[in-house]
């Protein structure tokens, strides 16, 4: 009996969480897991804070968990990880993109971007900060930072029994397969490096 695992992906509307959840779900289903995922559409997509949950196991009932129910949180933006942190189990993990997207009150100077986000996270929970945008930029396109984070997630939760490279190749547009595969591998390496260091 495989216990249900609960993942949560958060970020800012338009950051490409959808591609990652699509790849995730495809691979998990192909591997024979029961899968449920919950997205939020509509107004929040206009640059607001967005969250997606993915749950898999032998039998999954609820598509969502509440506070204290998430095993791994992947945050595509730094301060979003803090916003959603209460959803993470104390023994859970956080993978955070070390990248700031200032929200409206910050852009207009009403509030500062919070200081020391990564340090705060690290003091509270097992946290891996990944400079996914820089890594993706070195590969050739900062936009594939989402697949870098996906690679880190796969490494972190031991989903290596699934042939993710095939799943990625069958999901992204043909001209972008190599780029996305490189991003995936770089994400796995970044996470593996972190695991060795700790």
């Amino acid at each position, binding site marked *: 009996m495989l216990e249900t695992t609960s993942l949560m992906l958060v970020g800012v509307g338009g950051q490409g969480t959808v591609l990652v959840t699509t790849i995730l779900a495809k691979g998990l*289903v192909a591997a024979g897991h029961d899968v449920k995922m919950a997205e939020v559409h509509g107004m929040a997509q206009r640059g607001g804070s967005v969250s997606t949950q993915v749950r898999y196991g032998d039998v999954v009932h609820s*598509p969502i968990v509440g506070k204290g129910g998430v095993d791994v949180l992947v945050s595509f933006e730094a301060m979003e990880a*803090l916003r959603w942190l209460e959803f993470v189990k104390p023994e859970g993990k956080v993978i955070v993109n070390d990248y700031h997207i200032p*929200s*409206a009150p*910050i852009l207009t100077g009403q509030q500062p971007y*919070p200081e020391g986000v990564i340090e705060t996270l690290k003091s509270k929970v097992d946290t891996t900060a990944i400079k996914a945008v820089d890594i993706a930029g070195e590969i050739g396109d900062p936009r594939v930072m989402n697949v870098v984070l996906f690679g880190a997630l796969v490494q972190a939760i031991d989903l290596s029994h699934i042939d993710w490279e095939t799943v990625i190749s069958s999901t992204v547009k043909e001209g972008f397969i190599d780029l996305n595969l490189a991003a995936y591998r770089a994400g796995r390496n970044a996470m593996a490096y972190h695991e060795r260091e700790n």
Partner: protein
Amino acid sequence: MRSLMSGNEAVARGAYEAGACYAAGYPGTPSTEILENLAIFKGDVIAEWSPNEKVALESAIGASIAGARALAAMKMVGVNVAADPLFSASYSGVNGGLVLVSADDPGLHSSQNEQDNRHYAPFAKLPMLEPSDSQEAKDMVKAAFEISEAFDAPVLLRVTTRICHSKSLVTLGERAIAPRRLYPLDMTKFNLVPALARRQRARLETKLQKLAEFSETCEFNRVEWNGQRIGVITSGISYQYAREVFGDTASYLKLGFTHPLPKQKIRDFASRVDMLYVIEELDPYLESQVRQLGISCIGKDKIPDMYELDPAVVAKSLLGIEAPVIRCAASAVPPRPPVLCAGCPHRGFFYELGKIARRHDVIISGDIGCYALGGNDPLDALDLCICMGAAPSMAHGAQKVFNKFGERTRVVATIGDSTFFHTGIPALINTVYNRSNTVTCILDNRTTGMTGQQDNPGSGTTLQGAPTKEIDIEAVVRAIGIDHVRVVNPMDLPKLQDTLAWAFGLDEPSVIVTKWPCTLKPFDRQERDEYAHKFKYMAVAAEDCTGCERCLNLGCPALSFDHLTNKASIDASTCNGCGLCAQVCKWSAVVNGELQHA
């Protein structure tokens, strides 16, 4: 074959497999993808965006009368708009099966209220089904068509955000060849003049009695027995939360056919368990009816009756169990409200409207759509927002009262193109007919923006991609009788300023139409030519930036300000080159980004 589908995709798939051949709706979160996914089955299913939900349901009723299986889909507040035909369609009954999908939004993720549309079933006297995952959504739509035809009744399929937008595995089936029913020779049941309606009224009670009997044996009302200690009566997504919390330690009466309820089944189940919970989201719909049977239960005395539930809320409220959480001052994290996109054609309009509104005594009556974000800081150019199409009519009523008492306050209505077609037209007719002097601004972004760029009567294309007549908003406005109409480019701020000043100077009703496509909309060739920006992206020439922060008043997500250097800067990857900031900057510090970075 099993496929991971959202509830909305599954509803569409179910209607397709059931042999439905007509579907209509109006976009609205969380319902939108139902019609979008039915549109794919071109040739098999006629799928249409209607101008509003009333039209959608009436069209589906017509399709049913003509003998086809027909479906209408809308968000919960849309059912209010469609309530007029709905309450009488239950009297007339159907010919081809007729299903209305109500997509409710507990938690108000993307809505102005969180009404529980299960109440419509007893109120309008309709059978109702409530799925709890995508497989059930598909199965229940198919069953709904059969129930509709067997009992001569429109069927309400009630889903919620977590059904619509959650994905789970679905086994796909083939499309059934549902033979089109003969066009009925006796049409009197569809003619609800009082004498005939009175007859239908009595027939309706007989139908409901038969449906109540059906409810007792319906496979969707099932018991999952795990012993007598704890019993749970539940329906919809709440069933999944209950399973998550109680697992196999409780027995369940899992209700899928929830109007009329299976009273005997409920009595039997209740009598077999020691402790009875009723677990449901929002109103005590099930619980009140359980209590009416004289059965005591634990329900809304412990479970919240507002906002969404989730397993943690159920566990906490019923069992007092709280999972340990990482304490973190999430409320101290700066908020991230949704914002108008970089390059949004509404930005310049609200910027100028806000400026003029602060100089005059103005109330701005807004409407439902992305442009409701015009009320956020720093634009701050919107005061009211109630429901679809309300901007011109609320403005009219307010203006009449201000005028009656001799006050100088002017009322401005702002409404989008799709919302104007939805219910804005009768509201504007009222403005003309009843002689008020509001300023109505129709923000025509050539699409239905907030719900994800759906076509509408002004866009020139149907849901299934056919070219169609493009309804000319300016011509409509003039035909209604508005004498003062101007169409402006909202990317031209001085022009907007002049136009708003012109409208404020008039003592008669006026209309300003701003016309520029939504920046998220895929432009066709003609739009690419007609609505091109001068530059690909903008940049700040730091040596010219004085740090006045004026550009920040646009609230553009591509613009930020560094207080250390006292300079504004523009994120090239976010900017789409609309150039509003260049128009706002007094120091000519915003320049062509490509030259700056070259």
